[in-house]
């Protein structure tokens, strides 16, 4: 019997987060038995790069594509063509507009994440204070959604003031410079929230270099392996992330269900995803996998070697 080929398309190759997701996908493949995972993506985070990858996958007539998109809209035509050729398409992590995929797997629910990132900062600031946001690329959907959700719940954290939002473009040097700029412009800054794994590391480094450990707390979303140093130095007290291994695992399971077991991705559907339980789709055919998980000095050692 032929292997089922599921392509896990990521924003860019080489990012630790996605490497971990690929591990999860392999785990799912092993569990399913007859699945071959094609882990691929462009090397820079562009939509055009992903389109070329998708075209190549269409040409190979893979069974399913599970993509973390660099652009909500630009990938739609290419993915539509994939679906026309009978390929199952789902998005995960960073979504595609509804007409370009069958379902979208959110790592967590956006409101939960939005709340989590501000809560992480506020928990360290009982008397209130100034916080700033360091976002990722200007073209990624999820960052903006989370910041939006965060703003919705700001009322729950009196005394916390968001003084600025800057963009590090998911580049280490730019994020670093933006973080440094923040500390200069706002000498009383208490925390930098970076809901991006590149930005949070760069911001932590900038805080260490500026000698502001203890004054400015860096928090947000990051990878334990990359943030271990920041936790150790005290630049970051805590941060959160969902488990990318689980995410890759779930995406693979969902893709398999849709492509092999004839599961229909309709609003309200409940789709099994192995050890992660089931995914319930909302009216936009989106579903949330799980709550984000907080990492701090107490558990970082355990996780830093995993992803």
């Amino acid at each position, binding site marked *: 019997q032929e292997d089922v080929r599921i392509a896990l398309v990521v924003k*860019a*190759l*080489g*990012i*630790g987060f996605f*490497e971990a997701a690929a591990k999860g996908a392999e785990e799912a493949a092993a569990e399913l038995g007859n699945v071959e995972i094609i882990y691929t993506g462009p*090397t*820079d985070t562009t939509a055009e790069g992903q389109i070329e990858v998708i075209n190549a996958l269409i040409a190979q007539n893979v069974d399913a594509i599970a993509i973390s998109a660099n652009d909500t809209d630009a990938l739609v035509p290419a993915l539509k063509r994939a679906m026309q050729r009978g390929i199952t398409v789902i998005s995960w992590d960073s979504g595609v507009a509804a007409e370009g995929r069958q379902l979208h797997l959110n790592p967590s629910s956006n409101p939960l994440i939005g709340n989590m990132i501000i809560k992480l900062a506020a928990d360290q600031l009982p008397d209130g204070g100034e916080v700033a946001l360091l976002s990722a690329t*200007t073209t990624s959907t999820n960052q903006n959604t989370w910041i939006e959700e965060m703003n919705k719940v700001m009322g729950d954290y009196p005394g916390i003031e968001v003084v600025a939002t*800057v*963009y590090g473009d998911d*580049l*280490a*040097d730019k994020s*670093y*410079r*933006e973080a*440094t*700029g*923040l500390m*200069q*412009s706002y*000498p009383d800054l208490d925390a930098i929230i970076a809901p991006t794994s590149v930005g949070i*590391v*760069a911001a932590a*480094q900038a805080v260490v*270099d500026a000698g502001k450990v203890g004054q400015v707390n860096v928090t947000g979303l990051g990878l334990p*392996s*990359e943030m*271990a*140093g*920041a936790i*150790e130095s005290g630049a970051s007290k805590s941060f959160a992330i969902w488990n990318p291994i689980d995410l890759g695992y779930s995406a693979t399971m969902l893709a398999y269900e849709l492509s092999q077991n004839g599961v229909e991705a309709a609003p309200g559907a409940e789709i099994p995803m192995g050890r992660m339980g089931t995914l319930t789709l909302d009216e936009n055919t989106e579903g949330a996998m799980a709550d984000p998980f907080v990492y701090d000095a107490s558990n970082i050692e355990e996780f*830093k070697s995993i992803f």
Partner: protein
Amino acid sequence: MVSRLIPVREAILAGAILVLLALVASRFAGFVAPANLANVFNDTAPLIILALGQMVVILTRCIDLSVAANLALTGMTVAMINVAMPGLPIPVIIAVAIALGAVMGAINGLLVWKLSIPPIVVTLGTMTIFRGTIFLISDGKWVNAHEMSAAFTGFPRAAFLGLPVLSWAAIATILVFGVMMARTPLGRSIFAVGGNPHAAVYAGIDVGRTQFLAFVISGALAGLTGYLWVARYAVAYVDIAGGFELEVVAACVIGGISIAGGIGSVGGAVLGAIFLGVVKNALPVVDISPFWQLAISGSAILIAVAFNARAGKARGRIILKSTVAPT
């Protein structure tokens, strides 16, 4: 009459930088505090070092588009070496970085010298090859801060006489280049080769060899910067410094280095780099959307090149003048 042309050009650029600083200071006084200016300089140090290397190449009528890829490949290599052998002393790491960068520069140089392939084609090709090689050796994986040794990441930020080593590296490069360009036969040959390659042959200067050396110098500096960059930002991945080569060329152009070769100065290149560095650091501070940065540096290039062309325009032969003067 006496040619003070080049210093005038630099004075104007320096003036532009001062005006820029004054404008920023009027909105945010803290920007011109000495500590912050030192920060800006430190931040611009890699650009300064690379701009000096690029200057030498451009002076010999070539161009090196592979510097950023060279920087990234060297940076990744030394980072991986550091991970594999955390005990390796930093001087060895630096030597490896410079040597590796120089080897890549030499590849460019040899293709230009021995096969006379146009430099823009050579470095366009090696740019993609070097970048791709990073992916091959690293398998696309990042090298993160906690994997690097403390000595490795600590060196460029270690303070010495109040300035980080990174800044000192730029200052040292400026001084070495100041002496090299003005007072060594190599420096003067570089000007000669770019100014008039045909005549250089008659003066006993090997044009191809000089261009080769220029590429080696540029490569070595890219290698050095590769280590400093990776250590400073404490991360190495395939795409670091992506597109930085154009910023480096832009710094040279703004600094008055003629793309046609033979004209330019160390001071110009340094000021060009500092100009871009100030713009880049000032924008977030004065709360201009960072989205303006690209358009601003583009306009700066256009203004600079238009200005430099005007200043350097040939004045004709002025035959009539002699009729005015008593014969």
